[in-house]
C-alpha cells in the first residue's frame, strides 16, 4: 500500500478516492515522453542509469588525469610536444607545469572520491537495488530522487567548467586545506577555481543528502510484506549504513565549506591568522587552520566508508550467489557493518597525527582506529568462509568480488601500519599512504562497483556484458593494480614524499626513476583496459546477448522476480510477499530457493 501511495505522488496522499485505483496498478502506464522517460525521470531504475553513466564519464576524465601526471612522474626529463598542443601554457615545452600537476592530482582525487565512488557507486546501486530488493514500487519520493540526480548533474557542470578557467581548477589537494585554499594570492589554483570547487561541492552535498534521505526512508518504510530487516540482502544493509553515514557527515563538511567561503570572500578569519603572502602582511588574525581539518575529516573519514560499504554489500551478495552457498555469518556481517559505521565517526583525527595534535589524544585515536580491524577481519573471515567449499561459478562479477576481498586484505593490512601515530611520523605524506588508500578504498571499491555492474547489468539493460572482455578487464586490472601500488609501499617506506612533480633532483630518490617509469607504464595499460570495459558497457547496451531467463544467476533476491524488463512500478501485479531470508542456497538438496517461496512444512523458518 505504502509504495502505491508514493507512485501516485501527491495526489494520493489523503484523498480517499485514490485507493480504489490501486488494483489496476501496473496495468496502466504513465504517459511518457522522451523527456520524462530519459531526462527528468522519476523512475529509480532510470535515475540509477543516469548516475552510472555520469559516473563512467567522470571516471574516464579522472583516470585520464592520473595518466597525465603519471606521465610526468615516469618521464620527468622527456618532452611530449602533444601535451603543449592540447594544454598550451599548462604544459609549456611539452612538460607538465607545477601548477598543472597540482591541478591534476587535486581534480583526480575530487572526481574519483566524490563524483565516481560516491555518486557513481552509491547513486547507481542504491537507486537501482533498494526498491527492487525490498519489494517496493519506487523510492519514497521519486521527486526528491530526481532532484538528487539533477543536483549531482549541476555539481558536475560546475566542476567541469572549473577545468576551463584561465587560472585553472582548484589545485590545493582534494582536502583543500586552508590557508592555501583560502587565499587567492597564494596560488593559481586558489583563485576562481577554488570558488567553483566549493560551489560544486555544496551542490554535490545537497545531492547526496537528498539521495541519502530517500534511501533511509525507503529501506525503513517501504519494505514489502514479510521483508523484515533481518531478511534483507546484505546489499540493503550496507546501503542503509552508507546513507546514515552520508546524512550525518556531509552536513559537517558543508559547515566547514561555508566558513571557508566566508574566509575567501568576506575577509573573515575563521581559519586564517598572521599570514604573510609574497611579502604582503594580511590583516587576518586569530584564526585556526586546524579547525578546518577537524571539520573536513569529520566528513572525510566517514566518506571512506561511504565509498567502501556499498562495495562490501554487493560483494557479500555476489559471493554468496556465485558460491551457491548461504553467506557465512549473516548477523555478524550486519553487526560488523554497524560497528564500522559507529567507528567511522570516532577516528577522524588519525588523519591529523602530525598536525600538532596532543599525543595523549592521539593515543585514543590510535586505539579506535585499530579497533576497525576487528569488524573488518570479521567480514574478511566471513567472505572467505562463504567461498570455502562453495560450488564456485567464476563469472566476471564473481572474479571482481573475489578481487575485492584480495585488495581489501592487502590494503587493510597497511592500514594497521598507518593507524599507529608513531609509525605515522615516518610514513605520513609518503607514497606508502598513497598505496594504502588507493588499494583499500580506491581500487577495492572500484572492484565492488565492477562486480555490481557485471552482476546487475542483465537487470538494467536486459542484455549481458561480453564475458571475454570481462575476463580481460578483470585480470589486467587486478594484476595491474598490484603492479602499480605494491612498489609504492617500498617507495613510501624509503621516504618518497607525495605531491612532488619531479624527484630527479634528489640524490636519495633518484634510485626510483626506473620504478616510477614502470608504474607509469602499467598505469597506462590499466587505463586502456578500463576503456575496453567502457566499450563493452555501451556496446552491450545495444548489441549484447539478450537475457532469456528472468533469473539468469539463479538468485534468491526479489529483483529477479520482476519481468526481464521491468516497467515503472517494477512488478506488473501485486508486490511479492517474502517468506524467507535471501540466502537459502544449497538447502535441502535444492540449488536455490527464492525469497518469495513459502516455508515448507518440513523446514524451519528463517
Amino acid at each position, binding site marked *: *500500500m*505504502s509504495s502505491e*501511495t*508514493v507512485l501516485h505522488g*501527491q495526489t494520493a*496522499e*489523503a*484523498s480517499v478516492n485514490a*485507493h480504489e485505483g*490501486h*488494483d489496476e496498478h501496473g496495468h496502466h502506464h504513465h504517459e511518457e515522453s522522451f523527456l520524462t522517460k530519459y531526462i527528468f525521470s522519476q523512475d529509480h531504475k532510470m535515475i540509477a542509469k543516469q548516475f552510472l553513466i555520469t559516473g563512467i564519464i567522470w571516471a574516464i576524465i579522472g583516470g585520464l588525469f592520473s595518466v597525465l601526471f603519471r606521465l610526468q612522474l615516469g618521464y620527468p626529463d622527456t618532452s611530449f610536444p602533444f601535451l603543449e598542443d592540447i594544454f598550451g601554457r599548462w604544459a609549456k615545452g611539452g612538460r607538465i607545469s607545477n601548477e598543472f600537476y597540482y591541478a591534476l592530482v587535486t581534480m583526480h582525487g575530487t572526481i574519483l572520491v566524490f563524483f565516481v565512488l560516491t555518486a557513481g557507486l552509491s547513486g547507481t546501486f542504491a537507486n537501482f537495488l533498494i526498491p527492487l530488493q525490498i519489494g517496493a514500487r519506487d523510492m*519514497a*519520493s521519486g521527486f*526528491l530522487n530526481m532532484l538528487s540526480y539533477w543536483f549531482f548533474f549541476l555539481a558536475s557542470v560546475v566542476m567541469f567548467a572549473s577545468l576551463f578557467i584561465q587560472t585553472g581548477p582548484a589545485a590545493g589537494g582534494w582536502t583543500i586545506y586552508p590557508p592555501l585554499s583560502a587565499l587567492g594570492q597564494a596560488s593559481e589554483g586558489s583563485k576562481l577555481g577554488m570558488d567553483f570547487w566549493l560551489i560544486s561541492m555544496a551542490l554535490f552535498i545537497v545531492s547526496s*543528502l537528498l539521495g*541519502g*534521505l*530517500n534511501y*533511509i*526512508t*525507503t529501506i*525503513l*518504510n*517501504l519494505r514489502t510484506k514479510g521483508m523484515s530487516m533481518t531478511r534483507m540482502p546484505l546489499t540493503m544493509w550496507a546501503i542503509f549504513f552508507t546513507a546514515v553515514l552520508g*546524512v*550525518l*557527515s*556531509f*552536513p*559537517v563538511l*558543508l*559547515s*566547514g565549506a*561555508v*566558513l571557508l567561503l*566566508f574566509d575567501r570572500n*568576506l*575577509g*573573515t*578569519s*575563521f581559519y586564517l*591568522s598572521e599570514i604573510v603572502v609574497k611579502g604582503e602582511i594580511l*590583516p587576518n*588574525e*586569530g*584564526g*585556526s587552520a586546524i*579547525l578546518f581539518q*577537524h*571539520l573536513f575529516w*569529520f566528513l572525510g573519514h566517514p566518506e571512506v566508508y561511504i565509498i567502501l560499504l556499498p562495495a562490501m554489500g554487493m560483494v557479500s551478495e555476489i559471493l554468496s550467489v556465485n558460491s551457491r552457498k548461504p553467506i557465512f555469518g549473516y548477523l555478524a556481517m550486519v553487526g560488523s557493518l554497524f560497528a564500522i559505521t559507529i567507528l567511522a565517526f570516532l577516528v577522524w583525527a588519525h588523519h591529523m597525527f602530525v598536525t600538532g595534535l596532543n599525543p595523549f589524544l592521539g593515543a585514543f585515536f590510535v586505539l579506535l582506529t585499530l579497533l576497525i580491524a576487528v569488524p573488518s577481519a570479521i567480514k574478511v573471515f566471513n567472505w572467505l568462509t562463504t567461498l570455502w567449499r562453495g560450488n564456485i561459478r567464476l563469472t566476471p562479477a564473481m572474479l571482481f568480488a573475489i578481487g575485492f576481498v584480495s585488495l581489501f586484505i592487502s590494503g587493510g593490512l597497511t592500514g594497521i601500519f598507518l593507524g599507529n601515530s608513531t609509525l605515522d611520523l615516518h610514513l605520513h605524506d609518503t607514497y606508502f599512504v598513497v598505496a594504502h588508500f588507493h588499494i583499500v578504498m580506491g581500487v577495492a571499491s572500484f572492484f565492488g562497483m565492477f562486480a555490481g555492474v557485471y552482476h546487475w547489468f542483465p537487470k538494467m539493460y536486459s542484455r549481458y556484458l561480453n564475458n571475454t572482455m570481462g575476463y580481460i578487464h578483470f585480470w589486467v586490472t587486478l594484476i595491474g593494480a598490484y603492479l602499480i601500488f605494491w612498489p609504492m609501499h617500498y617507495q613510501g617506506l624509503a621516504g618518497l614524499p607525495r605531491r612532488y612533480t619531479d624527484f630527479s633532483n634528489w640524490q636519495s630518490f633518484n634510485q626510483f626513476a626506473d620504478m616510477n617509469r614502470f608504474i607509469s607504464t602499467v598505469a597506462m595499460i590499466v587505463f586502456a583496459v578500463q576503456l575496453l570495459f567502457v566499450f563493452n558497457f555501451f556496446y552491450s547496451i545495444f548489441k549484447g546477448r539478450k537475457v532469456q531467463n528472468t533469473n539468469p544467476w539463479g538468485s534468491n533476491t526479489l529483483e529477479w522476480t520482476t519481468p526481464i524488463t521491468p516497467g515503472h512500478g517494477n512488478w506488473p501485479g501485486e508486490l511479492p510477499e517474502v517468506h524467507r531470508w535471501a540466502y537459502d542456497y544449497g538447502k535441502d538438496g535444492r540449488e536455490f530457493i527464492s525469497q518469495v517461496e513459502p516455508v515448507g512444512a518440513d523446514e524451519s523458518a528463517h
Partner: protein
Amino acid sequence: MLDVISDQQRKIHPHKFTLWVAIGSILMMFAGLTSAYIVKRSQANWLMIEIPLVFWYSTFTILLSSVTVQLSLKAIKQRNMVMYRRWMLITAVLGVLFLVLQIIGFYQFGENDIRLVGAGSNASYSFLLAISGMHGLHVLGGVIALVVIAIRAVSISKRNYSSLPLEVAATYWHFVDLLWIYLFIFFNWMK
C-alpha cells in the same frame, strides 16, 4: 486491502519520516558549526559577544509563529479553509519579519563599530553571522514551503483537504524555531 490500509495508518508517513531524517542531518551541520565555535572560543583572541536587544524581538517573533502554524494546522483539520489560509499567511509574514529583525540586528553591530566581516573582523562575531545566516536560510526555506502550500490550498482546479503537506511543513517550522532558541541561548551563554 482494508487491513493493509489500517496497517499503514499506524506507521509514520514516509514524507514525515524523510523530514525527521533531514532534521537529523541539519542538526549535524549546526553541531559542526557550534562545536567549531566552542573550539575557537577556547583559543586566543576571542571577543565577548554583546547581543543587541533586537534579537530578543526576533526570538519572540519566531516563537509566536510556531503558535500560528499550529493554529493553521488545527484549522485545516477542521476543514476551516478561511482560517487555515489566514493563519498560514500570518505565519509566513512572521517568518519574514523574523528574518528582517535578524538583518536589522546585524546592521546594529555595524553601527556600534563591530566588524562582522572584512579587515579588522573578529572570528567571534563572524561566527555569529555565519551561524545565524545559515539558520536564516533554513527559515527562508520554510517560508517558501508555507507560501507554496498556501498557494496550492487556494487552487481552484483541485480541492485538497490533505493536511499532510502542512503537517510536514509545521514540523519543520517548529524545528527551525527550536533551533533558533538553541542558538540564541548558546550565543548568550557561550560568550
